[in-house]
């Protein structure tokens, strides 16, 4: 019963500033309901009343908790004189992965849908806003980005989450099948009649499980703050190059956290969707210029705070005392030992290194030649997701789209409960139940339309 075709007229939202530099991020929304959605989360002037093409000062507030998220400027641009020829809202917020993501999620929870890659451009084109000759490139964009984002999305959907969603869906499906069988075969007395009481129990139960899951998105320390990561090593070993590589990737988001001094700048990067909070990057830069001795004290401090340590060793030189100290300091930490400068002749004592460092912690790179860096990213992601699997929270929500969809599912289940409360018949409450099931299916990509009928005919014995 899922109907994907109606997405064309949804109100869509996305973070539209290229992640990376800049202290300001823009979250953009386009579609008929843009003004309505923005109004729900904006404290300031009533956006529905302001003139078109104005910029308005105010605050973004989570309507559920009344928590203030950020101080913002909101641009209101009414159709048709906009990029997409639809109503557009742009929220200028204080950069930073945390508030920007939070604002995006609030929009998604309040009626917008996460934009597909290239979707703003596509709408601009479809509404005759951009030139026909650009059509080809728009399509390339759609195809290329969709393929990539689908791969990424599938990759992100780790086995546990996927299984959990599938279980939720199956639970809902069992109920739906029973409602349907009661409707389509009303005279079959051997099928238990699904009352609103049973429906209520099921809706409550599934909703509670979704809420539990959503907590991991709201409260997961790592997701909120990033995985504290220290990059340590002797001067000139390549720390700065590695840092620059991580920061200059498209995915990097660098931010000044308001109210902090230059000294403790924290920089956030997203590596394969693992948010890293790089600690003491100032230290890394400093040691680069001044030929000072390795600040072991400083490193010790950074290591102490870190959830993950990346130790760089120079593969073209023998191990030094400092190297050995760092390896000793981190032996109980989650770490990656990176043998850098593999482009030069190798002089490091491999036998000794291999004795101290476990194979899964060890890898070789040449940051200069861009070699081994994919492997590095992969290791980071692997470490992170393995770590999560072993931690107490078995499933961690990391993806904005998943979070938004789970919120929608939760809202639909709430609507089931509201309907029951209002005395609505079971087949009406079931509409919202079906919606919850559809929305969950969007997470796992299961929207096989005949699923329900298959269930119906395999579960019940029907017919003349």
């Amino acid at each position, binding site marked *: 019963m899922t109907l994907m075709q*109606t997405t064309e007229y949804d109100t869509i939202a996305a973070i539209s500033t290229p992640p990376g530099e800049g202290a300001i991020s823009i979250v953009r929304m386009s579609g008929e309901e843009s003004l309505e959605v923005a109004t729900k989360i904006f404290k300031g002037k009533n956006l529905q009343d302001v003139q078109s093409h104005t910029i308005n000062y105010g605050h973004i507030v989570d309507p559920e908790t009344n928590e203030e998220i950020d101080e913002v400027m909101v641009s209101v641009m009414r159709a048709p004189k906009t990029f997409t020829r639809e109503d557009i809202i742009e929220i200028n917020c204080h950069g930073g992965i945390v508030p920007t993501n939070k604002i995006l999620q609030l929009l998604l929870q309040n009626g917008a849908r996460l934009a597909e890659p290239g979707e703003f451009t596509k709408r601009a084109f479809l509404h005759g806003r951009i030139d026909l000759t650009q059509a080809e490139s728009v399509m390339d964009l759609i195809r290329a980005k969709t393929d990539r984002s689908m791969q990424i999305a599938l990759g992100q959907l780790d086995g546990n989450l996927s299984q959990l969603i599938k279980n939720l869906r199956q639970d809902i499906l069992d109920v739906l099948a029973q409602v349907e069988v009661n409707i389509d075969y009303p005279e079959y007395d051997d099928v238990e009649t699904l009352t609103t009481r049973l429906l209520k129990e099921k809706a409550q139960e599934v909703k509670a499980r979704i809420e539990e899951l959503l907590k991991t998105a709201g409260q997961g320390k790592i997701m909120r703050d990033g995985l504290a990561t220290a990059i340590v090593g002797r001067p000139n070993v390549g720390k700065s190059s590695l840092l620059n590589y991580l920061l200059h990737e498209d995915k990097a988001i660098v931010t000044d956290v308001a109210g902090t001094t230059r000294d403790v700048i924290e920089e956030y990067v997203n590596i394969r969707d693992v948010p890293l909070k790089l600690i003491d990057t100032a230290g890394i830069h400093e040691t680069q210029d001044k030929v000072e001795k390795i600040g072991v004290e400083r490193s010790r401090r950074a290591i102490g705070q870190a959830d993950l340590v990346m130790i760089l060793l120079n593969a073209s030189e023998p191990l030094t005392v400092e190297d050995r100290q760092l390896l000793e300091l981190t032996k109980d930490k989650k770490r990656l030992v990176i043998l850098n400068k593999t482009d030069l002749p190798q002089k490091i004592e491999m036998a000794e290194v291999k004795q101290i460092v476990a194979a899964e912690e060890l890898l070789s790179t040449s940051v200069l030649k861009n070699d081994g860096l994919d492997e590095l990213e992969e290791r980071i992601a692997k470490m992170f997701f393995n770590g999560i699997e072993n931690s107490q929270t078995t499933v961690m929500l990391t993806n904005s789209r998943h979070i938004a969809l789970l919120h929608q599912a939760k809202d639909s289940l709430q609507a089931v409960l509201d309907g029951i409360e209002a005395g609505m018949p079971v087949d009406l409450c079931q509409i919202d139940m079906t919606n919850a099931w559809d929305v969950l299916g969007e997470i796992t990509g299961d929207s096989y339309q005949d699923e329900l009928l298959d269930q119906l005919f395999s579960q019940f014995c029907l017919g003349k």
Partner: protein
Amino acid sequence: MQEVKQYAGKDYDVIVVGAGHAGCEAALAAARMGNKTLLMTINLEMVAFMPCNPSIGGPAKGIVVRELDALGGEMGRNIDKTYVQMRMLNTGKGPAVRALRAQADKREYSIEMKHTLEREKNLTLRQGIVDDLIVEDGTVKGVITNTGAQYHAKAVVLTTGTAARGKIIIGELMYSSGPNNTQPSMKLSGNLEKLGFELKRFKTGTPPRVDGNTIDYSKTDKQPGDAMPHHFSYESKDEDYLPVEDQMPCWLTYTNGTTHQIITSNLNRAPMFTGVIEGVGPRYCPSIEDKIVRFADKPRHQLFLEPEGRETDEYYVQGLSTSMPEEIQQKFVHTIAGLENAEMMRPGYAIEYDVVSPYQLRPTLETKLISGLYTAGQTNGTSGYEEAAGQGIVAGINAGRHALGKEEMILKRSDAYIGVMIDDLVTKGTNEPYRLLTSRAEYRLILRHDNADLRLTEMGHEMGLISDERYAQFEAKKQMISAEMQRLAEVRIKPNDQVNAYLAEHHEHELRDGILAADFLKRPYVTYQDLLQFIPAPAEPLDSQSIEQIEIQLKYAGYIKKSMQKIEKLKRMEAKKIPDRIDYAAIDGLATEAQQKLAKIQPETLAQAGRISGVNPADLSILAVYIEQGKIAKVG
């Protein structure tokens, strides 16, 4: 053998092949639109015959009958004239799923429909087998019969049902036959294949019939009809409704362990399991042997004994569909409570037949391959009288419009169950005989039984199938409903002793402030009649149908609004037409699977394209961009 000499018969505007439930609706629609119409059937005694269950309606199907009636079809009127029992199902549930079902007098139903056809002035009913089509340059020109007649026409509708290379199977016995031992149509299928159509084999079945005089009713439960008047047709009147004592009851009984044991120990003689039956049967209508194998842990299965008519004592054993050998059927029938001494009058049987894979059709039910050729009913892979009739009227209207050179008519998923069914068939195809179920409709709250007239009468009138007089009545009813809704939204109920006493009765809080009548009616326990105690009566009293409308539209307003919003979005996607004969292979960026599916199904709108499995949103976007761009390569 001598070859039959062909001769030129008369010319017609529309020819309909087959006078089952699809064919009758198709022919009547075409004729009533002013087309000179020929309706050919293999056997004139089989017009609108019910070869299986003697009933019409039920969940989803009953709504289809109402939709047919609103469009100007005949099924609703015909069953209202010939039912022996009428019952509203799902009364304990919400308004969207209420369903009317009638037990029919099979013979009466057939005779009444035949007479209606005979009286239709533009319509000729004739016995004969159509063996071939006359096709020129991809356009149908007429038909050729087994007696050598060539009839020319501007449009042809095929509704061949289970007659197309039909084969009956009873245990080890197997023979060529149409439904109920009538003559099958053996040549037409082969000629369709020669024209390039892809056919497949489906199977369906029917249970044994027993002599009512030999049933011990005391061992069964009586299932009477409803006393409160119900009708399928919006034209029927309450005063013509049969009192419950003049209706015929059905009887409920069950299979038991002994029944199951007999079947299980004879599975080696069951064609279903020995590989004799090749056609695909419906999951929702399994044979008893299938049920017992698949649901081995069920101790019993329900059976309904249904009368086949007033002038006969034959009873249909609903739930006992089978193709086991006659000997075994006899044995297990006798194990059933009430049927211990029952005389079996006809054995159950399975029947295999040819269907045209429905992806080869457009939403008008015209074939993509041959212009002017339409197919409907079981031919398109459906099952059920109502499903057949629903397609029949759409095919008939479009064939008629084609002959008249008028624009075609398409029912959308949001218009009618008939639209849901046709869209499913032409977009997704079907791997088993297709039956309508309410769960197939995503907007079932909008596609209700009570509002079929509001949804479709206007369309029926526009097609010329609803008289001006009936249309005027409909308009008046619509007006009355909206005027009263308007009034209820303005009148306030003030708190007073009478209202508060009423509320106390329903264990509700007293009214503190005034409340709008419309809001008061939204409370689950309040009926319109209750409401009238507290507000002035309307200038003119409302009929029960209008009251029902007002109650439903107000009480479920929130849900209706949500559905309508979705429908609005869908309609905008439906408005995005895809030009025909697109060369999908020439579109860069479409995934291979999407390319193949789109080329095969040739969707007519972006919305339809989006419903094809394997076509994902990125493919849709690319398609949209191409269409917008207008630079589309065509095939052919």
